[in-house]
């Protein structure tokens, strides 16, 4: 069935998108997604996630650069690409007066190899809502209807633009489960999200977009590893910062002091923490409020969103994404 033998199902090279002649929403984005991989695009609002995904879906031609989905141009060759992809937009677009079942039936008539309506509804847990008008669905139910439509044609590549926005915790969990099962079944998934937990939970690889650029990319572990870990504690009474062992020798990158609370940032968490604890042991003092925290995606994300460290991490982009 797969006439395309490329390993990379999605290839994006130096992609650009310009709105209204002057606003550049996507400014030279490069990444690739292999078959069966789940790739997440993270970013703050306005980072260029949706603008990028829309180019992959063949919604518009790029202002510059190259996009290939399943080895083809998704815009110029959309008749060939569309039957093999599934798309979930950020905002659904369903006539509000149709019922859930009628909406699926309409979409099935426009989708090659569509699943039966009942199966599609079962997949997303909307079976009991099939006779309800779309306007009466909750926000979460609308997202799930949108997901059902995206899955209708058993797509090889699935584009999910913020699939769990508006879902409650349980709905989010079951969507994650479904997406993981789809990935295990061989579907390539590209998802955008601003939930870091979602990316950490699902993504094989991810890229963090910031102001139209990829600020960091790689596996969640790689992106996180490029970020410093944190140790914070309260200085024991009678001690000063200078009484600690020389921080630079412990691998500490920088520190800040708030009252008696010391915060250290380190790239070598184990070495720094060990040295610090040995020092406390020898000095027979207690480090009150000790908090040792390895780097998290959240931290990486926040630093990038603040514009800090964007360049340092950005250098990794080529090697990990290529």
């Amino acid at each position: 069935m797969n006439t395309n033998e490329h390993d990379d199902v999605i290839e994006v090279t130096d992609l650009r998108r310009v709105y209204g002649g002057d606003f550049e929403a996507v400014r030279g984005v490069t990444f690739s997604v292999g078959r069966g991989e789940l790739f997440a695009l993270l970013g703050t609002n306005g980072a260029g996630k949706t603008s990028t995904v829309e180019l992959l879906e063949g919604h518009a031609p790029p202002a510059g650069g190259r996009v290939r989905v399943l080895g083809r141009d998704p815009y110029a060759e959309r008749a060939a690409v569309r039957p093999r992809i599934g798309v979930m937009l950020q905002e659904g677009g369903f006539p509000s007066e149709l019922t859930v079942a009628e909406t699926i039936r309409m979409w099935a008539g426009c989708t090659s190899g569509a699943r039966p309506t009942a199966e599609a509804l079962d997949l997303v847990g909307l079976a009991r809502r099939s006779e309800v008008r779309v306007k009466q669905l909750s926000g979460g139910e609308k997202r799930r209807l949108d997901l059902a439509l995206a899955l209708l044609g058993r797509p090889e590549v699935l584009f999910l633009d913020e699939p769990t926005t508006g879902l409650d915790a349980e709905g989010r969990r079951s969507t994650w489960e479904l997406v993981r099962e789809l990935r295990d079944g061989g579907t390539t998934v590209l998802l955008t999200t601003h939930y870091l937990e979602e990316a950490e939970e699902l993504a094989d690889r991810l890229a963090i977009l910031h102001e139209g650029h990829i600020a960091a990319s790689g596996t969640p572990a790689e992106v996180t590893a490029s970020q410093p870990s944190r140790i914070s504690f309260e200085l024991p009474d009678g001690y000063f910062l200078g009484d600690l062992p020389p921080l630079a020798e412990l691998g500490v990158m920088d520190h800040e002091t708030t009252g008696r609370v010391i915060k250290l940032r380190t790239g070598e968490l184990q070495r720094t923490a060990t040295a610090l604890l040995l020092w406390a042991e020898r000095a027979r003092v207690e480090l009150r409020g000790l908090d040792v925290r390895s780097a998290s995606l959240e931290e990486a994300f926040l630093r990038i969103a603040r514009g800090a460290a964007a360049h340092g991490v950005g250098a990794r982009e080529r090697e990990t994404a290529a």
Partner: protein
Amino acid sequence: MSGTTVTTGLGTGTSGSTTTTAGRMAALARAELTLLGRTKATLAAAVFVPLTLPFSLRSTVDQMDLKGTGLSVGSVVLPSAVGLSLLFAVYSTLVSVYAARREELVLKRLRTGELRDAEILAGAALPSVVIGLVQCLVLTVACAALLDVGAPQAPHFAVLGLLLGLAMWPPLAAVTANFSKSVEGAQVAAMPLMLLSLLGSGTFFPLEVMPDGLASACELLPLTPVITLIRGGWTGDLGAHDAFGALATAVAWIVVAVFAVRRWFRWEPRR
């Protein structure tokens, strides 16, 4: 979202039937017909106005001085009835439909699928066009029975006029939908061309009773050639020259409207 149901084939690939243009448009048209049935106000305007208004025209036409124009009451009312049907059942309805689907992001959603752009617009237009066609046939029969218009003298002109009309108003509606920001605004956006067509295309009164200069300007309106051809179909006194002029005008409007849609149609709400 129970985990047990997802075992039924989460594999990928397009096995099974491939969609066709006709199949895709039929699926869309079916949904649009359902929606039309649920939008009572639009449905009422589309179905009842064209079926009732022509007969209220009759008393007006009865008082017109038609001597010397070669027209009878029936040959004025019948083309007018067809014109009203095209304006209310096809044009006005479709301006609302296109604007509503755009504002609800339905058009954007549909464009992510296998439907081509033209299929989306044509599929959405299909129910209205069929309603318009059925209405025209019903009105023709009614006029023949009630107004004694007799059989058409040149039926090919009448058929040609009707087909051109049905092909012309959907793209004009799509262009018009561009000038509205909401469903309510769509009706306002449709007004200018509706009024112009009612007054200037021989719908309420024949161009023959207008001053010459105004009449020849009105011949260039989109509905005028449709009415001219249909009337000529019944009276049989439409010359080859006039018929060709009407045909060229109608085709020109279709070409211009289709070009404008391809070039400027807005598929998404303005942000």
